[in-house]
């Protein structure tokens, strides 16, 4: 093994390691009795005790359906659920409380806009501008909408280092463009996209903007009024909250003008046998029993994140990411996907020509306790663009440490040794080979 120059870490940029004690699951062992190093946070994060307690507290003391009963528990649940909405409103600085719609997640949020706003507003020949780096959840709903409406999808190309080609964006932005829908942060490349610039230019061209904020709201302070964004979608489970809850933010005037998407209970004002009138916001887009307890848990997660501070979290992740990036850069034959650390959020994906991502994920787990994602991370078109079938992704959050990055690097080097060609020969069974 070759020795590589030591890479410095600025520990003053890191959060206190003691906060790991808030996360019971981080003391688990995985694989071959290895302490867990959870580096799969872009897929889903873990929960602190404060969130777990909030969830069980609801089930133990206050749970009932919301907006329905006049009994004590329904009143309590309703109050907690609506408090959660206020907590999201403050997090993203929405002007109005009813601009915050609880959904089942980012996917449901984007689908709501694609189905409701898309079907009502897109005409044949209208264009929706996406990008090559989008997650499937910000591609497929628009493909379906295009099929229904005759709208045309365009895709912002990428620069060689995995950022949006902003000159191409300006060329693609025309009077036919009705919506620009892009991720704030790429879940595969880690690229932080210039959303403020995108929104300003799209608005100047008369287009609306939807931001897939699944990878940004958990890690970076987002202010929807300062951005002047039209729609914003994100999930609870990527920000220390439960799965099954997400948010669609939309500007009041846009949401008011949109037809309801899912029909059912809660979303109505009055129902007759052959017709209904929709409820006002936000109920209009919250048909059925909403994700009551997950939303309350998400609110506890927001409280936890805000007690630490998103700026401090971002500083911590940036330092870990730079540290991992620099160390991975020294490994021969390893290709890091995406831009330099100063343009990326807290994740690093990489590919190695001869060794499939599965081998990295398997051995990292079994032998080093390091949980990473292997595959296409729901970005098949991006992987096709990069000319690879799969990649391995390490993604960080507030509880990760430089020592966990060291184990990642150690594991990657071990995988390379383990699967290096060794002149192995299969035992011959066939005489005529």
């Amino acid at each position: 093994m070759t020795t590589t120059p030591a890479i410095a870490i600025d520990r003053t940029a890191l959060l206190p390691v003691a906060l790991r004690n808030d996360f019971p699951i981080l003391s688990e062992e995985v694989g071959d009795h290895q302490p867990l190093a959870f580096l799969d946070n872009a897929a889903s994060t873990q929960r602190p005790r404060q969130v777990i307690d909030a969830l069980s507290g609801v089930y133990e003391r206050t749970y009932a359906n919301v907006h329905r009963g006049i009994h004590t528990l329904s009143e309590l649940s309703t109050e907690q659920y609506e408090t959660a909405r206020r907590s999201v409103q403050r997090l993203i600085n929405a002007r109005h409380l009813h601009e915050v719609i609880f959904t089942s997640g980012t996917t449901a949020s984007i689908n709501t806009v694609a189905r409701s706003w898309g079907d009502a507003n897109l005409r044949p020949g209208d264009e929706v501008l996406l990008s090559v780096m989008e997650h499937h959840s910000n591609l497929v709903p628009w493909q379906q909408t295009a099929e229904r409406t005759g709208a045309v999808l365009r895709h912002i190309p990428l620069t060689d280092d995995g950022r949006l080609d902003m000159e191409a964006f300006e060329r693609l932005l025309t009077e036919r463009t009705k919506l620009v829908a892009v991720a704030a942060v790429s879940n595969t490349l880690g690229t932080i996209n210039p959303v403020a610039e995108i929104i300003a230019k799209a608005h100047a061209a008369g287009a609306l903007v939807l931001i897939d904020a699944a990878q940004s709201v958990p890690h970076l302070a987002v202010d929807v009024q300062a951005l002047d964004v039209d729609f914003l979608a994100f999930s609870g489970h990527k920000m220390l909250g439960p799965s099954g809850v997400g948010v669609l933010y939309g500007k009041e005037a846009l949401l008011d003008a949109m037809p309801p998407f899912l029909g059912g209970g809660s979303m109505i004002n009055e129902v007759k046998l052959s017709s209904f009138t929709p409820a006002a916001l936000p109920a209009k887009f919250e048909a059925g029993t909403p994700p009551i307890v997950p939303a309350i848990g998400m609110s506890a997660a927001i409280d936890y994140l805000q007690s630490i501070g998103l700026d401090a979290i971002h500083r911590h992740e940036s330092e870990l990411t730079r540290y991992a990036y620099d160390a991975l850069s020294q490994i021969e034959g390893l290709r890091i996907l995406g831009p330099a650390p100063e343009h990326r959020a807290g994740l690093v994906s990489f590919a190695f020509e001869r060794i499939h991502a599965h081998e990295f994920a398997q051995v990292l787990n079994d032998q080093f306790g390091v949980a990473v994602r292997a595959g296409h991370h729901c970005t098949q078109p991006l992987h096709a663009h990069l000319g690879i079938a799969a990649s391995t992704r390490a993604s960080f959050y507030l509880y990760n440490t430089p020592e966990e990055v060291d184990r990642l690097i150690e594991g990657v080097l071990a995988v390379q040794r383990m699967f290096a060609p060794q002149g192995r020969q299969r035992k011959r069974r066939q005489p005529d080979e």
Partner: protein
Amino acid sequence: MPSEEELYQEHILDHYEDPFHRGHLTSATHAHEDKNPLCGDVVRIELELNDEGKIKNVYFDGQGCVISQASASMLIEEMYGKTIDDIKAFTAEEMLALYGPRLTPNRQKCCLLSWKVLQSAVHSPVASGDEN
């Protein structure tokens, strides 16, 4: 859960590095290709079947993880010289047993890719100019 020593046994790595009949068969009568969309593993199998339904020759090609590629090599070696009926009678359980180490459900998909491709290949005659 199997450890990686178990998962990547020597004979499996041998098949990975020194596969049986990796390549293409110009005399192929049947062929099929499929992928595991979750991870991008690809396997293609080309068969030359004679009139009696016997496998005169068989080759595979593909790319992907050790399990998907080594299992393809092991399957092709196992089926070489056998008949269509032998292929049809060869179950998924037998394929997993042929591979050896216990696999989690996600890795079973890697191991069974070549088995699925082979089952389809015997029903996919190579037409002139278009083989699928």
